[in-house]
């Protein structure tokens, strides 16, 4: 089929289907796909009109033909897609039929509940049916979420042999609905191996034009544009697209001359628009474009290109040598990891390295989970760091954006395992200049390994711009003579191979005192030799300073703007509050001053036992805050600030207890499982309850929102919790709460159940069979104390 595609000439697609259907009497809210079965002649007529207007590709009437939408409508997917492709096929004759794939109409995780895997399955089903029915190519269109587009493209590439075109829709601010800019869209789609990519829908041709120019600047593959006929205007009772065929075609011609090779129309366009468009580009030939390839990683929304300004790859999400992080990984404390990620971002990291390799955990499962969590919170590109190829593949598959793989080396086995994965998922790869014989001592030998990896990558279809070479840093304490070989190797690799480079800088100082001094000195030398992206601790102020200074001296930080911003004002002293006396701990808690309170607790611990501090300071302060809150003297934000402060103080005490007697010494008043029930997406109230329960010494297993009953039951059993808290905030989800109650009663007859949430009251709680109704978080604490008092 591929042979039919010819980009030597312009390829003209059809225009809107929906607009034409509405003109033929389809009502608002009706499912257009139903027409494939009930009024095939109408669909066929529209196809024929576009073909008559000169369209070389017609698009099947299957925009919403996915398992979710059709199940709601009670239609059979195979039947609808089969009919739609057959209608188009019959009309098209020798011309091409594009299988239309629109968005699934659901939000992807973490905003919605559509998982990447479920999206992939839904698209795969459509695509298999479409290929079987005889489509010539796959048009994934009107995508507003790059993550969803990635699922669709992977589904197409893995389930069909057809060329894949993908277009995304942009908002007036020049980004997609989920926030991706045009460069990011190009970087991600292109790396996934689409035949053509571009823009459709949302805006009119005039508004799209500047975005199209950006796309053309970065896209190496052919660019497709299908604009609306202008922006919709409400005129009288009708919504009207106002751009007439002649004007539409004029914009089309302008785009063609700028380098667009594939043109068509979206909402509001008609056969007349397509006819005019075809005529307008009639005498032209597609512009030949030479587009340089970037070495660029992307998150869901933004792109970091290596070269020029130095890019920092944050190294802190790596458990080697980090006790607290190991513990967090073992305990599944993802909040700790997220905080590390946020801290690195806030301190200037451009990319985050993610390594969760610990012998005692299931690395693949944890890696996938951690990646999903981090990319839901942080819009930085990720570098997937593992020694296990199967972990890497699982991670890059579900990673939103275009990740970096860390790493491959010169061993044949490593290259055969990693490079195909990098190609398939369009990743950048860090290439370590070592092989089965280890790290060569000389710069020249490392250059040769880099060269070997680059050649091998090329054989797998990965251009050298997709490779980032790491010449490997040795420690000055062990291999002092070879430290400068790394610097030499960076210079050689840059000069001879012209690729981007990275280095794990802080390795240099292992085993020596004053590590920051060695690190920053080595860093300066490496940067001068051509290091593009140091892997380092962004929280290390001295290294950060060095990067900033280098960016000025090498003319990357134009007019020293960032430098002046960072250093022209004296740094604010954080300790604005004078040191408090011990008796002030209560005041600090009520004022919500976390760090100050933690410092006072540390002082107190020199003289008093941790548990005594809890009883004499923390709990009384909490009680006081609670009382004042109930009286209306303090308000929710203050209550929470105080509770967060107690939590911080608690952490100091727990740490101290652990030091004294090991992890087992952590005291708990009892275990409580809490969850927001299935279907409900409200999280905050439940988090408040968790915080207060923890403040009062309970161990809380918070399962999150939208939690199926089975998961709650499982956790209650596993932890043998005596109390479970369920939350529901909607009239519609209260019945799911009743369901969870029934399941718990059945599986764990011993457990006490408290319920809460805005729509509940005492009566209703009783009616659905709960043991307690907690009107707020304070009440939940009282209930928990009572339950565990009675139990003990």
């Amino acid at each position, binding site marked *: 089929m591929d042979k039919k595609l010819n980009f030597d000439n312009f390829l003209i697609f059809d225009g809107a289907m929906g607009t034409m259907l509405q003109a033929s009497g389809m*009502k*608002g*809210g*009706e499912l257009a796909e139903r027409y494939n079965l009930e009024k095939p002649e109408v669909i066929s007529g529209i196809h024929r009109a576009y073909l008559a207007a000169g369209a070389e590709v017609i698009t099947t009437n299957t925009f919403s033909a996915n398992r979710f939408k059709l199940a709601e409508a009670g239609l059979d997917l195979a039947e609808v897609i089969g009919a739609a492709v057959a209608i188009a096929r019959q009309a098209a004759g020798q011309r091409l039929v594009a299988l239309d794939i*629109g*968005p699934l*109409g*659901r*939000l992807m995780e*973490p*905003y*919605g509940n559509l998982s990447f895997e479920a999206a992939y399955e839904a698209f795969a089903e459509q695509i298999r049916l479409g290929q079987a029915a005889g489509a010539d190519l796959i048009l994934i269109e009107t995508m*507003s979420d790059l993550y969803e587009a990635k699922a669709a493209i992977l589904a197409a590439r893995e389930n069909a042999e057809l060329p894949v075109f993908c277009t995304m*829709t942009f*908002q007036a*601010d020049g980004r997609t*609905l*989920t*926030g991706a800019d045009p460069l990011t869209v190009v970087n991600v789609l292109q790396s996934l191996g689409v035949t053509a990519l571009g823009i459709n*829908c*949302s805006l009119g041709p005039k508004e799209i034009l500047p975005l199209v120019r950006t796309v053309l600047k970065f896209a190496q593959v052919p660019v497709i544009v299908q604009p609306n006929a202008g922006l919709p205007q*409400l005129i009288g*009772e009708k*919504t009207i697209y106002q751009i007439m065929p002649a004007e539409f075609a004029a914009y089309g011609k302008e785009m063609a001359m700028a380098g667009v090779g594939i043109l068509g129309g979206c909402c509001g366009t008609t056969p007349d628009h397509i006819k005019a468009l075809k005529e307008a580009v009639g005498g032209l030939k597609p512009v030949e474009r030479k587009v340089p390839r970037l070495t660029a990683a992307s998150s869901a929304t933004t792109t970091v290109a290596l070269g020029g300004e130095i890019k920092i790859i944050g190294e802190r999400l790596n458990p080697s040598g980090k006790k607290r992080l190991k513990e967090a990984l073992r305990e599944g404390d993802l*909040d700790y990891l*997220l*905080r590390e990620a*946020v801290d690195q971002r806030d301190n200037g990291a451009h990319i985050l390295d993610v390594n969760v390799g610990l012998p005692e955990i299931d690395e693949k499962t944890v890696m996938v989970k951690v990646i999903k969590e981090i990319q*839901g*919170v942080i819009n930085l590109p990720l570098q997937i760091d593992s020694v296990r190829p199967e972990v890497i593949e699982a991670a890059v598959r579900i990673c939103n954006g275009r990740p970096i793989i860390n790493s491959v080396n010169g061993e044949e086995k490593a290259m055969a395992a990693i490079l195909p994965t990098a190609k398939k998922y369009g990743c950048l790869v860090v290439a370590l200049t070592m092989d089965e014989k280890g790290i060569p001592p000389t710069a020249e030998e490392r250059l040769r390994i880099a060269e070997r990896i680059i050649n091998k990558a090329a054989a797998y279809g990965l251009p050298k711009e997709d490779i980032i070479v790491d010449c490997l840093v040795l420690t000055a304490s062990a291999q002092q003579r070879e430290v400068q070989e790394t610097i030499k190797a960076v210079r050689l690799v840059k000069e001879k191979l012209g690729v981007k480079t990275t280095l794990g800088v802080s390795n240099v100082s292992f085993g020596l005192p004053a590590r920051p001094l060695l690190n920053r000195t080595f860093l300066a030398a490496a940067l001068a030799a051509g290091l593009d992206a140091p892997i380092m601790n962004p929280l290390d102020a001295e290294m950060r300073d060095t990067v900033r200074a280098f960016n000025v001296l090498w003319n990357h930080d134009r007019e020293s703007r960032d430098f002046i911003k960072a250093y022209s004002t004296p740094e604010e002293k954080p300790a604005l509050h004078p040191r408090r006396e011990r008796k002030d701990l209560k005041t600090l808690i009520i*004022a*919500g001053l976390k760090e100050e309170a933690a410092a006072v607790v540390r002082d107190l611990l020199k003289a008093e036992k941790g548990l005594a501090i809890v009883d004499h300071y923390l709990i009384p302060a909490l009680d006081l805050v609670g009382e004042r*809150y*109930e009286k*209306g003297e303090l*308000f*929710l*934000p*203050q209550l*929470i*600030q105080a509770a*967060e402060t107690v939590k911080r103080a608690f952490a100091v005490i727990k740490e101290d207890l652990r030091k004294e007697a090991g992890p087992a010494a952590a005291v708990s008043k009892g275990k409580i499982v809490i969850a927001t029930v299935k*279907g*409900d*997406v409200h*999280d*905050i109230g439940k*988090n*408040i309850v968790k*915080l207060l329960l923890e403040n009062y010494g309970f161990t809380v297993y918070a399962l999150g929102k939208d939690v199926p009953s089975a998961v709650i039951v499982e956790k209650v059993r596993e932890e043998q919790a005596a109390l479970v808290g369920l939350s529901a905030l*909607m*009239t*519609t*989800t209260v019945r*799911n709460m009743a369901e969870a109650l029934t399941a718990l009663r059945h599986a764990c007859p011993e457990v006490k159940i408290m319920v809460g949430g*805005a*729509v*509940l*009251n005492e009566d209703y709680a009783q009616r659905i069979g709960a043991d307690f109704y907690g009107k*707020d978080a304070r009440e939940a604490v009282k209930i928990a104390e009572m339950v565990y008092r009675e139990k003990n």
Partner: protein
Amino acid sequence: MEIAQDEILRYLGYRNQNPDPATAKLIAECLSELKAVIRAGVVYQRYPLEKQGDRIGLSGTNLTIYSKDLSHHLRQADQCLLLAATLGLGPDQRIATYARLDLARGIVLDACATAAIEALCAEAQNKLKAKLAKEGYALTGRYSPGYGDLAITLQKAILEVLRAYPRIGLTVNEEHILLPRKSVTAFIGLEKREESGRAQERPAPAAGVKADDHCRRCPDQTCRYRKGGDRNG
């Protein structure tokens, strides 16, 4: 978009008290952070109404609604606007993050975003009001699924009719909760203004007044945001 400070405070449980300086600062920070991540989307369509008892049809669509309360709300209207508005995914992402890492900030940001979506709707309504006044129409207040007896299960059909997902990225989950979270759909009645000025006797009320009306009609007596109640957070 003018986000009302007193609305934010109300969502946080204040009843005409002033926030302490730390909370006031937190609110100001949240507002500026929020404004940077809002990507507002508003879509609407205008339909002649086909009324029959408590049954309301929107002409040219497959949407038919049975609701005493909506019928009452639209009793003097011969057309209506169907509106959907959202702040986009940005606020959801920030609120969810802070709900885990800095709960107080999460709560305040959530309250700011709730006030912001109200403000976005009010702004859209005011623009439409000015535009439609020229045609001799007055607007009623906004009436949303979930108010009174107007079924929340209508959300999906409303979004389909407006093609809200492809246009502004607004969806609904299985439990009829709008996603992104900070979103609204609403009916706004269009009342033909007569020479006698009868329709002018009930002009579209200002945002605050109208919400009070909604609260009075709402069956949820325990809602934390209920106006005029004494329930605290």
